[in-house]
């Protein structure tokens, strides 16, 4: 645990130092990678016990809308309040659904979460007070009561994201290594045996769903505040699809891989949008196929040995 915390803090410090000298254009994709990465980490959390949520867009959008609405209507301008509020709102939204969803597995879990996110999408598109299909703009927030000067805005938002995402990632790594976190891997292997050994699989999956929703809410709030704009597309199924893609690309072994995967995906997306504006989906699809073909265990499997992964020999 001490090792995880110190390793995490050192990595965050290194990234902060690197970001000061990094080229300006890199900061935005890096911020997006962090804020989407934390959502992906939630999907990875559930993937560890073998269920994949194809509707994480719902809680992602909920966090973003909550933070944006608080900023717009309640006049709260402090990012350190807005971001956790987004996380809490998403966790609250997920809470009533968790016991219901925990009864489902595999494709049914994926499809039910998908349908929930599409219901939210439908509501957001049709609600004019929430901006309808165009969404609305969000003013840039203050950080600890300080206005960000225009030239520091990108760096400030990146550091803000890094602070939240880094802290939560350390917590999640500790959780993954805890005995409860390891039971998740056992569920993935054989659910019935885990139940015979006295753990409640449903309770576990339900709780993980709420935790994942909290993470997604944080990510949504960070994304909305960084973009300065939110829209119903946050809850659309293709958003969820891309988040699941990042989770598959990362694999469920390493937390660092989640951010690497998010970052790679963000770069592939911006570069293909820049160089093949009409065929970026094609490029993304080919990239996805190559990853699934040659790296089925995800990027994390590159540096985590097979013994630690617990592969069957």
């Amino acid at each position, binding site marked *: 645990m001490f090792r995880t915390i110190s390793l995490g803090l050192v990595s965050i410090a290194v990234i902060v130092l690197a970001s000061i000298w990094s080229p300006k254009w890199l900061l935005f994709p890096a911020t997006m990678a962090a804020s989407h990465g934390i959502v992906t980490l939630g999907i990875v959390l559930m993937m560890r016990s073998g269920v994949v949520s194809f509707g994480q867009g719902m809680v992602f959008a909920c966090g973003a809308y909550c933070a944006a609405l608080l900023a717009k209507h309640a006049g709260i301008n402090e990012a350190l309040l807005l971001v956790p509020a987004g996380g809490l709102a998403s966790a609250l939204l997920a809470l009533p659904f968790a016991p219901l969803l925990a009864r489902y597995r595999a494709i049914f879990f994926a499809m039910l979460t998908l*349908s*929930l996110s599409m219901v939210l999408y439908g509501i957001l598109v049709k609600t004019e007070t929430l901006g309808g299909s165009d969404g609305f703009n969000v003013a840039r927030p203050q950080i600890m009561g300080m206005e960000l000067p225009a030239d520091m805005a990108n760096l400030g938002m990146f550091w803000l994201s890094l602070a939240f995402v880094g802290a939560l990632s350390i917590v999640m790594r500790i959780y993954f290594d805890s005995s409860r976190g390891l039971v998740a891997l056992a569920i993935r292997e054989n659910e019935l045996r885990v139940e015979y050994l006295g753990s409640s699989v449903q309770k576990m999956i339900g709780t993980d769903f709420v935790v994942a929703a909290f993470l997604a809410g944080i990510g949504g709030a960070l994304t909305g505040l960084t973009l300065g704009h939110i829209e119903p597309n946050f809850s659309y199924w293709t958003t969820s699809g891309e988040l699941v893609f990042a989770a598959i690309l990362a694999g469920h072994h390493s937390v660092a891989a989640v951010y690497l995967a998010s970052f790679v995906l963000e770069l592939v997306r911006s570069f293909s949008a820049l160089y093949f504006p009409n065929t970026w989906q094609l490029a993304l699809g080919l990239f*996805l196929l190559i990853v699934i073909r040659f790296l089925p265990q995800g990027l994390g499997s590159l540096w985590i040995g097979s013994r630690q992964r617990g592969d069957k020999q």
Partner: protein
Amino acid sequence: MLALTILVDGITYASWLFVVALGLTLVFGVLKILNIAHGSFYAVGAYAAASLVSWFGSMGLAPEWSLLALLMAGVATAAILAPLTERGLLRVFYGRDEVLLVLVTYALFLILEDMTKLIWGANPFYVTEPYGLFGNLSFGSLSYVGYDLMLIVLAAICGGAVWWGLNRTRSGKVVLAVIHNPEIASSMGVNVSRVYTVAFLIGVFLAALGGAFTAPMISVQPGLSVGVIIVSFAVVIIGGLGSIEGAAIGALIVGLARALAVHTWPAAELFSIYVAMAIVLVFRPEGLFQRVQARKI
């Protein structure tokens, strides 16, 4: 009166949806793949129909021939895309995790989405010829387009043909054996990989046929596939994956739920379908027509 309108609208919507969902459920039943690219095959079918109908028109053929053009669009799409996809792509990933296979088809969906834009451009196409062929029918004060009602017949033919093929023919029984247990079927001398290819071919054909025959009712433009795939997912999930009867009932539930929303509460159109699906799943987690499966220890 409103009830009748909802009923007819719902059944019309359900009819083409059933044809598409039938393909999806067949592919899932045999290959155990939930195919996101199914919506893309639907879209390609619609685009092919637009091209073929206008080509037939430019050759000076009578409008009746446009129905043949629609059928040919379905056949051509399946004949070209199905072997390429199944032999060239899916085969590499057989035996992998179900969710991973969903992502493979998601990648295929992304690729086909841009391919259709590259081939047909971003402007909408309108296929008008076939729509007037069947005239109008009137019930009391309401009048319906004959083409819409013809789709119901088409759906019944497709459903009946697939059911008959699976349950009443020798090759259908072989397919059922493969669905039940590919390994045992294979050891009994069944060419499982050919069954996969043929089943996938039929699945793609049904998707493309659905696309071709709905093309006259809509404007064929990018973004078609996304809407269709989500709705047909809802249909097969409601009915139970891999079940023909389920796809029929699922299509009816979705069609009626949507028609009810359109006529009574239009704002709810977008999510009425998902609400229907969620309600069914709460009471029947595996769908309406799915046998309960024993959990493996």
